[in-house]
């Protein structure tokens, strides 16, 4: 992975199928078009499953409040992710302050959640997703955010720079580090799973 790889991603590529063609200024339309992607983004950013709906609602409350100020210079999707990112930070911080509980421990560890609750991941039979989520949760917040925006939500480097308010070069270098860390964790987890009968 290098900056060139990210540069290639910056080229036009298919966005989520619900990406509207016309400017969207209607809250209900924005909600219907994007709430699944915002949900995914929040989940990938570390919001606990039990708080996902609350966080999603928070995002759209902010959207509702800020919609009159939205000038359309940025894509709606970018704007939404910028809001989601900040909401997710708030929820992560809150979760860290809360006393730990069994439920919280399960949610913080996707494998525990899956094993004990017969959770969504195991329902889908998605070992890859389970492993990817575990690897994701091992990243620190900065790396996790940039990895999610770039590799999961497929935002371009300039978009990410705008959302995170960091220089473009920092986007490249931080993403490189994030991918290295993610790959290393995936490798470690796969090795463990292969060695386990």
């Amino acid at each position, binding site marked *: 992975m290098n900056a060139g790889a990210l540069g290639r991603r910056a080229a036009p590529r298919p966005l989520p199928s619900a990406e509207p063609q016309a400017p969207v200024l209607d809250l209900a339309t924005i909600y219907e078009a994007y709430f699944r992607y915002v949900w995914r983004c929040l989940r990938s950013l570390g919001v606990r499953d039990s708080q996902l709906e*609350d966080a999603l609602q928070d995002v*759209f409350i902010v959207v509702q409040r800020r919609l009159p100020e939205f000038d359309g210079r940025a894509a709606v999707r970018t704007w939404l992710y910028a809001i989601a990112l900040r909401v997710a930070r708030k929820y992560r911080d809150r979760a860290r302050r809360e006393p730990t509980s069994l439920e919280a421990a399960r949610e913080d560890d996707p494998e525990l959640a899956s094993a004990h609750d017969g959770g969504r991941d195991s329902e889908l039979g998605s070992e890859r997703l389970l492993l990817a989520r575990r690897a994701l949760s091992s990243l620190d917040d900065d790396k996790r955010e940039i990895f999610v925006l770039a590799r999961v939500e497929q935002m371009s480097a300039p978009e990410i720079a705008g959302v995170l308010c960091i220089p473009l070069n920092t986007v490249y270098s931080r993403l490189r580090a994030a991918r290295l860390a993610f790959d290393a964790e995936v490798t470690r987890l796969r090795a463990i799973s292969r060695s386990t009968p």
Partner: protein
Amino acid sequence: MNLDDDDDSIFEQALRADLPTMAQQNRLRQRVLAAGVAAGTVVGTTNVAAATQVSFGASALSKLSALSWPAKLGLSAALAAPIAGATLPLAYAPVSGAAIVSQVRSSVATVHARAASKALARANLLLPAAPQAGPSERQSEPQPAALNVAARAAVVPVSGSASSSAAAGTLAAGQPSVAAQSPAAGQPSVAAFDSVAHEAAPRASEPLRNESTLAAETQLLDRAFAALAAGDRTAAAALVAEHARLFPNGLLRQERERARARLATDSKGE
């Protein structure tokens, strides 16, 4: 072992495919719509929260109650009508708005019929007494004629005042809010949503009666906050006191306490 690009994409694709299931999507819509009932048909926060508890768990209740009241009204009003109506081009099979309304209202009616009746009795008994309040209150705060008019109640919280209308979220400059648009303009409105709800659940009379309670509470507190913003502490205090007298256990009592706290803060500042 280093993963090649294919391995990378496999795991990243797994993360990208991690979207909510159709059941989860429907539940999210139900939750929004349940909140929408609070503004669209003005069932009342308590009853909505009860339905929320039944359907979505206690976290949704705490969330709903934690929202500021303009947010409760605005977000739900803006989202409820288009989701309930058929004007939104959905790429997947949506849950029937009328069916959800029916489900929510059934839960509300079943769980809180008794509470709603009590609230209604209290509202109907106390509201006529309002004009009998002290002369100063009567002069400064004439009682709105719409307090007991259930049919208008759905519109009052959203479009009845400048502040609540602004909080409800004007979607774009120069454009009316979703909640304020009229059915004649071809757009779903809160009132239109209410009519859909009536068709779906014509027997839900208790929530309808609560409309007057929430509408009256909203109007009182809306004016109280407006008076606070204008620096008229006397009028604000009178309105807060009136709300406390009329609705001691009202749906917006938390907002009332917030107004009281602001009054106390302001008085200390002076």
